[in-house]
């Protein structure tokens, strides 16, 4: 079913647009609606900031400390 061009984007559609996944037919609404465009751009900005967050690393030797406490079964192959 086609959405009318003048129907505002819902939150799911704004997320899809921010991720570059909104179908072009719905994205056309943004050219006509300043409110939706502002909301969508704010969402995209936040997504970019979140995506740039660091993946922290545990301290050196973490793997060895875990393996020392794991019960590794006897090899079968």
């Amino acid at each position, binding site marked *: 079913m086609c959405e009318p061009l003048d129907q505002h984007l819902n939150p799911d559609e704004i997320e899809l647009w921010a991720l570059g996944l909104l179908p072009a037919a719905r994205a056309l609404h943004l050219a006509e609606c300043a409110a939706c465009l502002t909301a969508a751009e704010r969402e995209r900005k936040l997504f970019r900031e979140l995506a740039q967050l660091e993946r922290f690393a545990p301290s050196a030797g973490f*793997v060895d400390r875990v393996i020392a406490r794991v019960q*590794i*079964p006897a090899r079968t192959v």
Partner: protein
Amino acid sequence: MLRTYDRFVAPPRDTATSNAGDGVIGAKDRPSNLTGASDQDVVASAVRGHETAFRELVRRYERPVFSLLYRMVRDRALAEDLAQETFIKVLNGLASYRPEFKFSSWIFKVANNVAIDQLRKRGVDTVSMDGAPDATTPDARAASALQLSGHGEDPLQEVEARELGTAIERAIGRLRPEYRRCIVLRHVEGHSYDEIAQMLDLPLGTVKTYIHRARNELRGYLEDRRA
């Protein structure tokens, strides 16, 4: 025989293959026969008793799991203890892993349960660097805030302050724990809403609501700061 843990959880239902650890591990650190192997294949190798496979699973997930826990408890040493506990539970329970389920969903589910247990033990709903969101006076807010800088910090605290001190990290720290874990899993780890619902044992609609509210709060915190 492997031990069974009381907090052990069944892997969530999912069929996809994870590449969560790809890009985290240097190729030189990987056993050559496991390079590029799916999580399911690595697990199968571990169950057959190959220590290198156990190590590979830890290498693939140490950063994502530790990062989630660090953002939840906001204490590096505690997050590392909880990450160890997560891996030990998962790796000692590998014999019951079902390969049709996504390994990453399972390990994040265990990590989430470990974090919840810890937060319950501490008896706090949230840990905020800016003070409790429900504090009604500036003094109450200051009293409940984690100190990010100032005299008397040891080097480890200074590292934590730097790592978690950016505006976006501070904003995340002000979220309720359930919002925080959802937003990290969605926007930092890149999991789908369905996967997050499985990991956290929440209805899909609840996950969507939490994430939408979390984003609104984050935007509000960041805009307040910019203003």
